[in-house]
């Protein structure tokens, strides 16, 4: 996953970057698998790697890449950027190390086979309102895109 992430930002060719992003997303799906969440991993592959990245590639391929290939990949402030990223990473690591006692020592018994059922029960039971709001948000986004792209309404 780290290699994929680094390749995304360092490649000149945006198509190569998109493919490295696909590798990163597949690695993330495997991390979900290691966290005993097979349903989330499967949905990640279907939607992210198989759907969203295809649309990314569409747009990248339809836009000429000659300009972006000739650009510099890392601008002049890369040292400051590295220091900032290291500071962020350091603060996250220290939060995890110092706050380790806050996490339960033996977490909830994670049963891999019930991931789909538990997710469905929570999503359509406890968090139903949030689910509906999220779908409404997607609907508004689709309507906005169609309105912007149509020639005549």
């Amino acid at each position: 996953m780290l290699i994929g992430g680094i390749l995304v930002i360092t490649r000149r060719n945006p198509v190569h970057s998109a493919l490295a992003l696909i590798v990163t997303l597949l690695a993330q799906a495997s991390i979900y698998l290691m966290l005993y969440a097979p349903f989330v991993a499967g949905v990640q592959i279907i939607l992210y790697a198989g759907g969203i990245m295809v649309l990314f590639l569409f747009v990248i391929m339809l836009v000429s890449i000659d300009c972006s290939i000739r650009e510099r990949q890392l601008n002049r402030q890369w040292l400051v950027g590295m220091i900032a990223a290291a500071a962020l990473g350091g603060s996250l690591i220290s939060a995890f190390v110092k706050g380790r006692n806050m996490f339960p020592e033996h977490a909830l018994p994670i049963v891999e086979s019930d991931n789909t059922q538990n997710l469905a029960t929570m999503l359509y039971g406890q968090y139903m309102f949030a689910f509906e709001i999220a779908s409404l948000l997607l609907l508004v986004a689709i309507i906005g895109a169609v309105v912007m792209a149509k020639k005549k309404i």
Partner: protein
Amino acid sequence: MNQFVHYVQSYLSSNQTPGAAGNMFWALVYILLVFAGLSAAVIAMNWLERKILAHMQVRLGPMRVGPHGLLQPIADALKLLLKEDIMPAEADGFIFWIAPLVVVLAAFTVFVVVPFGPTHAITDMNIGILFMLGVSSLSVLGIVMAGWASNSHYPLIGALRSSAQMVSYEVAMGFAVVSAILMTSLNATGTGTLSMIGIVQAQQAQGEWFIFKFFPIGLIAFFIFAVAMVAETNRAPFDLAEAESELTAGFHTEYSGFRWSLFFLAEYSAMIAVSSIAVTLWLGGWLRPFPNALHGASWDMIFSFFPGATFLLFAVACFYNAVRMPKHPLFRIQTIGLAAFGAVLAAAGLLLFIPAVSSRVQDIFWFSSKVAAFMYLYIWYRGTFPRYRFDQLMQMGWKVLLPMGLGILILTASVALLQQRIWHQ
């Protein structure tokens, strides 16, 4: 050495798939078997397609290469291997090289969860059907990469069209699949399953194949999936991407020789994969016809004769055609070859009559014969329907199949809820 033998034998007494039992050796054996079987199926499909299409068009098809063209696929494979391997000058080398690999990987990895029997799968994941849909959607990426890497206009347009078509029909496929999954939850505990083996066992427990459930809802869901799966694999009548390769170009224009054969292999494997999904979800997987209506030991025995009888039927057809061969000295080798092939088929048929073999292989036979029926349907569609124009194609995917899928999902859920309420009141 003793430990290894014990490791190998410990699986034989369990009744799980090798993946679930954690047995690496048998998992590898199953993987090799599936790979070999799939390759043989693709080769057979090549021959069958040309012969069946020819017979539908009142001509003979390949007749020269072997007896009745049986060695034609081998000749095709040799030709493809010996062809010059061209890479366009300005093409993106790495992506050009990796695109066929991605498509083949996606098409073959799907078969890890395909259930040939209750324990005859490489593994049985809890998210089996989700895994199959996800990995088969990765082949779209390979096609996009192939069109891009060729660095010429026609492949790019062909690849974009083909991938747009595949992504659109994935949505309709998803709706049909969800309707079928919903039907697995109509049991005592009220929880369904996403695992492929679990879906077939749900059909067995509920006593009817899901294609007949809540008639005609199951049938319409099956129909939506059947149309979407033909569009998903870029086959006729939705083969604008392929047919562009007959007319002008397609995403695999710049690929020659072995690279093209990888695309071809991946296409036929994807066809078999989505047919396996359809068979598992709607047609009862490995169950023999009428598992509940005609049950009992005598019916089991009668149905257990089917595998052997099928092979014997093929053998009889071979012998009949061998007798009908022209009586010319130049045809002697072909006649002998056909008769030998018939003898091999007859031997296999007789082998399948032994109860010990038959009881193990029966599930695989029923599953394979249902998938073979789907393959025949694929070829039939190619010979019958005219091609869809691209805008008609996209219109059908989004404006017809998607609302239909949504409606079927809502109907399935409501009818299932009504059934639960009425029965468990």
